[in-house]
């Protein structure tokens, strides 16, 4: 079964500290993974996708198939990074749906 687990409901760090938001997945085959973010009073939006191997707003995420993880990292957190972060997995069988985790609320304190 496809599943995405984000073990931390809340995460609080100080500005300038490193941050890591954890994501583990369950999937048969080659997964396609994403991070979505929702800032306060804004819409859910795509942050990054693993196939692009991109860095967006200083965030990176590496797919680790051995550990079935796709953790989101940033070396120096900023206050504007405070938001709700969702890890998501593309559905199997040609489906275009996303399977989301429950989300992690990140708070970056000054």
């Amino acid at each position: 079964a496809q599943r995405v687990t984000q073990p931390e409901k809340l995460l609080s760090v100080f500005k300038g500290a490193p941050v890591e938001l954890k994501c583990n997945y369950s999937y048969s085959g080659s997964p396609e993974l994403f991070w979505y973010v929702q800032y306060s009073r804004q819409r859910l939006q795509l942050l990054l996708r693993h196939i692009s191997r991109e860095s967006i707003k200083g965030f990176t995420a590496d797919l680790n198939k051995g550990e079935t993880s796709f953790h989101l990292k940033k070396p120096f957190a900023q206050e504007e990074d405070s938001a709700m972060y969702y890890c998501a997995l593309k559905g199997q069988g040609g489906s275009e749906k996303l399977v989301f985790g429950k989300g992690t609320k990140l708070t970056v304190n000054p």
Partner: protein
Amino acid sequence: EAGVTQFPSHSVIEKGQTVTLRCDPISGHDNLYWYRRVMGKEIKFLLHFVKESKQDESGMPNNRFLAERTGGTYSTLKVQPAELEDSGVYFCASSQVTTPVLSGYTFGSGTRLTVV
């Protein structure tokens, strides 16, 4: 371009009543999706339209939920009769490209539904 528009933004109804949520996708977007987040749980897929056709409705919870997409433009999601467990935030998203997941959806702001 105008974004994905959902209304109402909030709706409070009594158990047993009917509610209709509406989503206007970005003009020209063939793919339209409905998701919902029930309190304390993950955002879950409900269904996917390609133009006016239902491509995947595997996430629809039961037959109290009816989704339509008239002429391949806007979409409605009707809940009839509403139950307490239907409370949550209903999101709509749209995308034009043939691989919308890889390219990323554009989400609406969501409709917060409260059934009392």
